[in-house]
């Protein structure tokens, strides 16, 4: 009985076992079939794969850190119209069209409805949705619209993920930011610093999970992607926008213009705060296309008279008061006819008046009289002033500057005269601006630069920053003279349009004819002009320097720097002036007493020991370009007064208020023997300032 029962149990178990065995055999045969007989075999590649990790391209930032160009994930939207059922279509199309019109905002709901209906009628299976790619926020909204919310297989919405380089400010600084394509061709910062922006690709092994997701294989060799560095530029968005807007508006005022450029530089550092390059497109509008600013070298015209004036004063050939005869506005020299714009000429005038009126005849006469015997000395002086120095800009594309020199095949009898008023040499607007900026910066020439630093996660990893081209392009007295002359151009000369009671501008206009195939005028009388204005502001304590250059096509009209370029400069300067809070001292609320300014010792104004610019003051006295100065006052936030000291031989100078180092330097250089007592600054001196005292005389100082 028990045996029977056991056999029965065993028999049942045997059948169950047999059933499992058959199922197992089927499974094994299935695997064998998939592995050996099926063409689409499952290989390890279907389960494991090497995945390339794409790095995020670094951003290009403005000087305040706001993005000028940034890579973001975007989604391209397509629509398969055939998968949508008729009832779904008729119920949802109106709401869908309204939603698309709201999100994209480029056309009306009825226009979207018509567009989608036409696509459906045509059986379009890959219809583009919207005028652009969308970000994730917009994608979420679009995926929740009627019809589309049903997914790809019932609603037809196809989402393709990609990455896009976005310029949040649109075309602002487009030429400077530039672009780079897949094969490494491009322009601007994107091209020059592609090697830092693109980062480094990574690699990892991933395997597919049951949920069809790919996850990294634990322990497999991998290298993470390294994102590209961010680049913080010197561009100030507000200044850049002002430059582009004003330049574009001016160019649009005449059909003759082919393009133009405007550059704004920070005086103490040489940082480029704004750079606009406008080039006329086929439809007549202007866009950032061509690198006029530093890729286009031409003869500059009268803006170069500043260099001529500086050279002649520095070499003691003339002073601002030297008289020169402009005659009737026409002068023949070396086989060429030199003319002035003003019909009838300017007659006799001083060198400063010649500069203010921009007389070609006067400058040709002065330069030939000054250097006629030795033209090479003038060329050498221009080189010493670093006028045609290769700037080694931190963006590719710098054009070559060139001065015609004696010994060159093209040098002729007229070349020296031409050099005097801005011909016979080619420079870019950036070269001219760098030179004017040096004048504004007390003679110190700064290299123009676009890159402040390279950053990673907001922290600088490499600082670029300012660098000096020349510590001093001329002597202090020459500098004072040319600055006076530049201010005179705005107050009395060709750039009166820039005169403003709120803040002072100094600069020089320039009008040059552009040579085409060696000729300044073609056989039909057409000419090409280059109208320019270069200068800086505020004139007494320069913060920004700027150049504006406009280029015309062939014309029979006249296009002067004073009437076309100077107004653009003025409007850009106005926008900068009215948008920065640092021009005026702060306003103190009721009940607040302005703090005392730091007490500044008298002494040499531009010595390293008088870093007025570094002091925590609401407003600063202007000491640039001054020598020995006496500084008084500064209590309760008032501006300290600065008085220039006249140092005369044989007269005891006023050293009260100076530190011992300055007082000793000044007195001993005048030949006096100095004794002193106490510490601090000079309180009393014996003999008094202004006393006549011979060399070797004794001066006693009391410090407190």
């Amino acid at each position, binding site marked *: 009985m028990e045996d029977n029962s056991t056999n029965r149990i065993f028999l049942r178990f045997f059948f169950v076992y047999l059933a499992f065995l058959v199922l197992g055999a089927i499974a094994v045969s299935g695997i064998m079939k998939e592995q050996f007989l099926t063409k689409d075999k499952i290989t390890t590649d279907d389960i494991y794969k090497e995945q390339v990790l794409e790095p995020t391209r670094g951003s290009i930032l403005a000087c305040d850190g706001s993005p000028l160009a940034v890579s973001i994930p975007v989604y391209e939207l397509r629509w398969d119209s055939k998968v949508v059922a008729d009832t779904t279509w008729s119920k949802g199309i109106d709401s869908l069209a309204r939603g698309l019109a709201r999100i994209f905002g480029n056309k009306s709901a009825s226009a979207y409805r018509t567009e989608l209906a036409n696509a459906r009628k045509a059986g379009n299976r890959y219809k583009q949705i919207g005028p652009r790619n969308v970000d*994730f*926020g917009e994608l979420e909204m679009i995926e929740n619209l009627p019809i589309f919310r049903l997914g790809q297989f019932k609603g037809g919405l196809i989402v393709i993920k990609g990455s896009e380089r976005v310029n949040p400010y649109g075309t602002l600084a487009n030429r400077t930011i530039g672009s780079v394509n897949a094969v490494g061709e491009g322009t601007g910062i994107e091209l020059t610093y592609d090697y830092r922006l693109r980062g480094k690709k990574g690699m990892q092994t991933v395997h597919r999970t049951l949920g069809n997701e790919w996850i990294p294989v634990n322990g497999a060799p991998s290298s993470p992607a390294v994102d590209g560095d961010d680049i913080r530029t010197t561009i100030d968005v507000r200044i850049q926008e002002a430059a582009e807007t004003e330049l574009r508006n001016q160019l649009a005022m005449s059909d003759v213009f082919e393009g133009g450029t405007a550059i704004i530089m920070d005086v103490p550092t040489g940082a480029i705060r704004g750079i606009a390059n406008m080039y006329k497109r086929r439809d007549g509008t202007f866009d950032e296309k061509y690198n006029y600013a530093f890729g286009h070298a031409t003869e500059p015209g009268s803006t170069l008279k500043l260099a001529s004036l500086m050279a002649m004063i520095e070499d003691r050939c003339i002073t601002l008061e030297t008289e020169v005869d402009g005659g009737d506005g026409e002068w023949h020299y070396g086989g060429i006819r030199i003319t002035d714009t003003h019909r009838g000429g300017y007659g006799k005038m001083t060198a400063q008046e010649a500069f203010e009126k921009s007389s070609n005849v006067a400058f040709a006469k002065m330069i030939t009289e000054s250097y006629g015997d030795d033209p090479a000395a003038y060329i050498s002086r221009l080189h010493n002033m670093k006028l045609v120095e290769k700037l080694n800009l931190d963006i590719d594309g710098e054009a070559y500057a060139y001065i015609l020199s004696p010994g060159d095949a093209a040098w002729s009898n007229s070349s020296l005269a031409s050099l005097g008023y801005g011909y016979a040499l080619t420079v870019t607007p950036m070269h001219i601006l760098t030179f004017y900026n040096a004048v504004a910066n007390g003679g110190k020439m700064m290299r123009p630069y676009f890159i402040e630093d390279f950053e990673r996660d907001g922290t600088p990893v490499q600082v670029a920053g300012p660098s000096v081209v020349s510590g001093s392009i001329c002597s202090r007295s020459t500098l004072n003279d040319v600055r006076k002359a530049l201010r005179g151009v705005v107050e009395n000369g060709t750039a009166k349009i820039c005169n403003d009671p709120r803040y002072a501008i100094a600069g020089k206009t320039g009008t040059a004819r552009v040579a085409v195939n060696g000729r300044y005028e073609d056989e039909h009388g057409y000419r090409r002009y280059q109208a320019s204005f270069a200068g800086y502001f505020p004139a007494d304590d320069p913060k920004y320097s700027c150049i504006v250059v406009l280029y015309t096509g062939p014309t029979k009209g006249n296009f002067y720097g004073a009437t076309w370029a100077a107004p653009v400069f003025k409007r850009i300067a106005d*926008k900068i002036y009215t948008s920065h809070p640092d021009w005026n001292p702060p*306003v103190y609320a009721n009940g607040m007493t302005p703090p005392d300014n730091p007490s500044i010792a008298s002494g040499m104004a531009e010595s390293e020991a008088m870093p007025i610019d570094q002091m925590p003051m609401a407003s600063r006295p202007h000491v640039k370009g001054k020598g020995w100065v006496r500084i008084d006052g500064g209590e309760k936030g008032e501006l300290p007064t600065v008085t220039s000291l006249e140092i005369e031989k044989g007269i005891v100078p006023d050293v009260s208020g100076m530190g011992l180092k300055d007082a000793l330097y000044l007195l001993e250089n005048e030949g006096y023997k100095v004794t002193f007592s106490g510490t601090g600054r000079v309180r009393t001196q014996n003999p008094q300032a202004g006393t006549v005292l011979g060399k070797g005389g004794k001066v006693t100082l009391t410090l407190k």
Partner: protein
Amino acid sequence: MKKRVFEYILGGQVLAKSSFTRHWRFILYIFALVILYISIHFGIRNTMQRMTRNEETLRNMRSEYMGKYNRLLHTGKRGEIEQLLERNSLDLQSPETPPARVRMEDR
């Protein structure tokens, strides 16, 4: 003989043998380890899947943030604001004097 061994294993008599009863704690421990190993393995896989999804979410959120930030930057341009003022017939003029900082006492 073969049939008896087969029966012996499949019938479960093998579990009643002394070697099994003697080592059942150890066998249980081995099973516990195997289960723990499998659990940890699946736990790791789930965590990695969550990480992958979170990274995707982060990328999407960055996309959304940058999209909105870029639109705001564009709208904040002086030119855009002036156009908006003009479109809405607001008679606001550009300033002619620079802004000034107002200093107030700390409270």
